[in-house]
């Protein structure tokens, strides 16, 4: 250990004392970024909080999955719904949103080499978010009749506890407060340097923040009236109104996950894989497309609803298809192409795929990110577009396949990517060696593999057997002779895969927490090769082939087409509807 580069451990396990210069800056030996103490400390704080939420939600996953595997039937119906709510809120909301605030601080002030403006707002935001997250958890665990467990959606007029709605409002406000320092840093940057464009990562983070604000305002529009209705000040709440408003935040928050994840992909493929941006124009335009079009993607939650005209449904889904799906397909090309061209330029691969084979697959940051990209596209993206087609939605709506779709997006895509980001933060910001390194190297493979199997089983159970979601028992249903027992073999595979996947998640927590407690402090350049600077040489662009990426995206397209056709075939076997 070199004492000049590693600080001695002091208070708080030494987690917050890196060596800084007099003004509180340090230069990262891997990325070359000029990092200020204020930024770094809040990124660490939000990241650590997120991991705690992941733990709570992961524990809930045991109860949820082992109830749905009816061989185990772990909990009763009311407990199942409480656990399902805890699972959804801690994972989809708290794990993701705390990570995303951290990502904004990375994408803004850290990449721009600035101090965190108004750290007091970051602190206030963190306290409000944490307090309301704890409060919401208490409400979820203690829900009892006549209130219903809210699950993720708290569909009015089914009432949840008043504290739940209020806690949610407070959480939304806390998140807005915590996002402000990021927005201020962008504003400061643009006033100081009006004539230079933000780095792509900052630009992505900025678009993420705008989409996030739209979603959060939608959340206030939804939850404030719903709270007033719950405490009796407003008399009536309309179910169709609630659904349409709710999905502004319900789907909007998924767009935050998507945009934050893509921003992290550009960031980490560059830092650990040597990726470069092949076209600033194309990648930035794709982000702009999201800004204008992705909101309408929320309409795909309302495809099986009354009260909305067919034209409205078709326009919004097609509009979303035009704008947002194209944007995603562009990133799906641009990110691997950046990796391919960047690595080829550095002489790391001549053949069609040798740039990929020679990549640092033993680095859990790299493998997590690549699995996130591939699985998000192949499983999450394709299923999302399919179930977003108006008529196909009939066969997906509220089945277990829906659950399969969003585990493909938010777990196989976002969660795996964010796990990679946490590994990165442990090494580059906490400056620790990973604890139990072989286990850390294995974890992304194990988790991605077993969680993919779990997700595929969810998809098959929903599409091939019509298994409904949110049912604690389907092979033995109280009050009817009918049952779904034919699906039992698939539930076996699902159950075993889920246990393994939860184990994979636990391994992540073990490595992450273990590294902070026991990982040896070290200078990160001894762990990750420093990023070589990119020369601004635009002729080099065409010198590098991206044929490997092109081949991969064609494979993706072929899978897309085949799955699409199969789904229409399944639909066409139904009776006449409409």
């Amino acid at each position, binding site marked *: 250990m070199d004492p000049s580069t590693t600080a001695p451990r002091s208070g708080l396990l030494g987690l917050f004392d890196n060596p800084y210069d007099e003004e509180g800056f340090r230069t990262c030996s891997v990325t070359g970024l000029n990092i200020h103490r204020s930024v770094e400390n809040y990124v660490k704080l939000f990241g650590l909080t997120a991991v705690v939420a992941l733990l709570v939600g992961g524990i809930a996953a045991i109860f949820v999955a082992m109830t749905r595997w009816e061989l185990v039937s772990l909990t009763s*119906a009311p407990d199942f719904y409480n656990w399902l709510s805890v699972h959804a809120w801690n994972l989809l909301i708290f794990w993701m949103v705390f990570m995303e605030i951290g990502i904004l601080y990375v994408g803004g002030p850290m990449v721009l080499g600035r101090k965190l403006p108004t750290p007091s707002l970051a602190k206030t935001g963190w306290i409000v978010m944490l307090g309301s997250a704890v409060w919401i958890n208490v409400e979820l665990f203690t829900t009892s*009749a006549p209130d*219903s467990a809210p*699950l993720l959606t708290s*569909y009015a007029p*089914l009432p949840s506890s008043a504290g739940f709605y209020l806690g949610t409002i407070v959480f939304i406000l806390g998140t807005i407060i915590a996002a402000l320092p990021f927005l201020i840093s962008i504003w400061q940057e643009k006033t100081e340097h009006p*004539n230079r*464009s933000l780095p*792509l*990562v900052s630009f992505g983070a900025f678009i993420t923040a705008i989409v996030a604000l739209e979603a959060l305002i939608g959340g206030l529009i939804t939850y404030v009236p719903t709270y007033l209705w719950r405490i009796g000040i407003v008399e009536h709440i309309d*179910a*169709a109104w609630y659904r349409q408003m709710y999905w502004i935040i319900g789907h909007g928050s998924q767009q935050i996950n998507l945009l934050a994840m893509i921003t992290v992909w550009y*960031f980490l493929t*560059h830092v650990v894989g040597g*990726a470069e941006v*092949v*076209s*600033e*124009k194309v990648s930035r335009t794709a982000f702009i497309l999201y800004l204008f079009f992705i909101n309408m993607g929320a309409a795909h939650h309302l*495809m*099986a609803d*009354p009260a*909305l005209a*067919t034209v409205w449904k078709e326009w919004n889904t*097609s509009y979303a*298809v035009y704008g947002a799906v*194209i944007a995603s*397909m562009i990133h799906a*090309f641009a990110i691997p*192409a950046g990796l391919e*061209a960047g690595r080829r330029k550095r002489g790391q691969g001549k053949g069609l795929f040798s740039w990929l084979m020679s990549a640092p697959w033993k680095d859990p940051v790299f493998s997590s990110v690549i699995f996130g990209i591939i699985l998000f596209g192949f499983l999450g993206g394709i299923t999302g577009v399919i179930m977003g*087609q*108006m*008529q196909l939605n*009939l*066969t997906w*709506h*509220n*089945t277990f396949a829906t659950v399969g779709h969003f585990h493909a997006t938010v777990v196989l895509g976002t969660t795996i990517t964010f796990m990679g980001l946490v590994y990165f933060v442990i090494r580059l910001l906490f400056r620790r060696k990973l604890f139990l390194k072989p286990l850390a190297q294995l974890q992304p493979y194990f988790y991605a593999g077993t969680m993919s199997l779990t997700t595929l089983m969810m998809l098959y159970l929903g599409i091939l*057997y*019509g298994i*409904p979601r949110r*049912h604690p028992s389907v092979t033995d*249903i*109280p009050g009817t002779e*009918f049952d*779904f027992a034919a699906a039992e073999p698939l539930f076996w595979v699902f159950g075993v895969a889920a246990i393994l996947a939860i184990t994979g998640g636990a391994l992540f927590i073990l490595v992450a927490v273990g590294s902070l407690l026991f990982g040896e402090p070290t200078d990160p350049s001894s762990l990750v090769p420093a990023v070589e600077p*990119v020369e601004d040489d*635009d002729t080099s*662009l065409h010198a*590098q082939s991206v044929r490997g990426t*092109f081949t991969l995206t064609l494979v993706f397209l072929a899978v897309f087409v085949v799955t*699409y056709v199969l789904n*229409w075939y399944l*639909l066409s*076997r139904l*009776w*006449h*509807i*409409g």
Partner: protein
Amino acid sequence: MSSPLKPQTDNWWDVPVHWDEKVWIGISVFWALVLFGWMTAWGSIGNQTQEGPTYQVSPNAFQTKIDSFKARAEETDRGFRPAGSDVYIAGMRYGFDGLPVVLKAGKEYDFHLSSYDVQHGFGVRPNDALSKQMTLQLLPGYEWVLPMTFDEPGTYHVVCNEFCGVGHRTMHAKFIVEK
């Protein structure tokens, strides 16, 4: 090529785009048009498009409609045989008012769907072919009129698949399609 971590000072807009990337964007736009075109076309060439008028209706008013539907129907030990071609179904915690019904195969019925209390789901499948299934949303305050024709005789099972409270999983019903 450039670094995603560096501010851009040159004119990145005018940097030419790689040929392969252009082709991929072209493919993406084309594929998006196919997706949209096929979905819209299915409304005329396909048999499954959930299109039908919606009316606002209070739960009480809808209950009156269900009562008169039942009164006009022939009551058999397998369920109500509708007098005309209208079928009225309401979700309620935890059952479906109006079901079971006995329908004729090949005849078009107008399904009037609503709810008395909270949101419910109307998930339908033949008992012996679980993969042939679909779901519609039932909302209190709205009556959705959707024509459906069942060609294959048999028992069709109805599952509520919108969470409606702790008894959600017990909310089942059926209807029968006869030759």
